[in-house]
């Protein structure tokens, strides 16, 4: 009986601690998530890619009354997504340090520069729904090798995940960010050709008779 009582006390104490920690408003999260390699159409083009400092280093931080000490770091999956997607879309991908820097004789057809514009989060308590939500907004710029802008467009990714028993706030936000990144990747792969001016640029670079499905 004593053994049973001790076990019950332990279980209820753990539940109480879990409830207390769930009520804390601070968030420290390093996002880790699975991002699949896409089934993309390969363009016979050589791409340079430039990640801005902002894209590589920005961490979401907020310290308000409602969101005390929020620190959400998704720098790694942000870069991993493009590192996985671009080689499936282009014949070759060359990382470069700046848009206007010469590429030491390497032949590139264009330079892609993704940049992070905005990140937003919503918690179930804030929206009165059962979902953790994340929105991520990027600006994508495509340059000619000499630095002249070919096209600029915006990409928004949205991710949500429902609340569930024993799912913490950080788990919920982690999943929401991963889905938002996945959404951005999907839109990038499928809408690349539809961005203003990109279709004409592709048509000028490849042999449309050989690749009719790309023109």
């Amino acid at each position, binding site marked *: 009986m004593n053994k049973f009582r001790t076990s019950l006390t332990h279980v209820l*104490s753990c539940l109480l601690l879990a409830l207390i920690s769930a009520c804390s408003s601070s968030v420290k999260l390093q996002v880790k998530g699975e991002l699949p390699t896409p089934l993309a159409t390969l363009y016979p083009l050589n791409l340079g890619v430039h990640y801005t400092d902002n894209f590589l280093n920005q961490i979401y931080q907020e310290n308000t009354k409602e969101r005390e000490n929020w620190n959400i770091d998704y720098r790694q999956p942000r870069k991993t997504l493009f590192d996985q997607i671009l080689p499936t879309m282009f014949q070759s991908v060359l990382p470069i340090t700046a848009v206007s820097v010469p590429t030491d004789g390497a032949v590139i057809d264009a330079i892609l520069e993704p940049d992070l514009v905005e990140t937003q989060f919503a918690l179930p308590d804030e929206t009165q729904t059962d979902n953790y939500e994340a929105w991520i907004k990027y600006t994508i710029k495509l340059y000619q090798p000499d630095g002249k802008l070919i096209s600029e467009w915006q990409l928004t990714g949205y991710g949500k995940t429902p609340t569930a028993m024993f799912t913490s706030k950080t788990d919920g936000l982690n999943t929401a960010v991963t889905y938002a990144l996945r*959404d951005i990747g999907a839109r990038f792969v499928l809408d690349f050709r539809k961005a203003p001016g990109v279709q004409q640029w592709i048509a000028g670079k490849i042999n449309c008779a050989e690749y009719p499905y790309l023109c």
Partner: protein
Amino acid sequence: MLSNACKLIVLLVFLTGCSNTTTVDEYRENESTAMLEGESIVVLGRRSSTSYETEFDFITCVGNTLKNKLRGINIIPEKEFLNSMYPYFETSTAPMDVQNLDKLVQTPAVAKKLNDFRIRYFVWIDGFTETTNNSGSMSCAVGVGIAGCLGFASWDDKSNYEATIWDFKELNLEGKISTQSSGTSYVPAVIIPLPLLARVQSGACSNMANQIGSFLK
């Protein structure tokens, strides 16, 4: 005395509670032809609504139940399919009707992957389970060397799902199956909480899977 009261509550709850009611409807658009051995079915959740999300575990449950029912037919797990077909079947990019699926297979990489899977039927499930009514209350306390709960809580669950079946071979809508379930759960607690749960979602899952299995046989 307390023990007798406990027994009475439990007996009453068993006799009156935890009852599930389920309704299943079927609509057939085209006559389905027999599946060949080695052909596959993929069960996918529609998650385009902003107000709810079709649960991943419900889709997994329907897939697993269908697998037991249709021997010799391959059921592709949702996550495996979504990752393999990325980015064509994401929430924001998935085809909403069978005509769009026809357009999608014009992309050589997509057509090849779907042929590799030997897909015959797509089963799209849209819906969710929600708690519609809560009542009662329960208090729990922890002290030095003692812990316990006292009270009575109950709630109603309601589930509503619709499955749309596409024939990939014929590129047409095969039919639709819908299921509605509801039930009430109770938790009486005298020191120890005793949950008596109505298995609304799992009931909806088995009814849906059995009906899909019969539909495709």
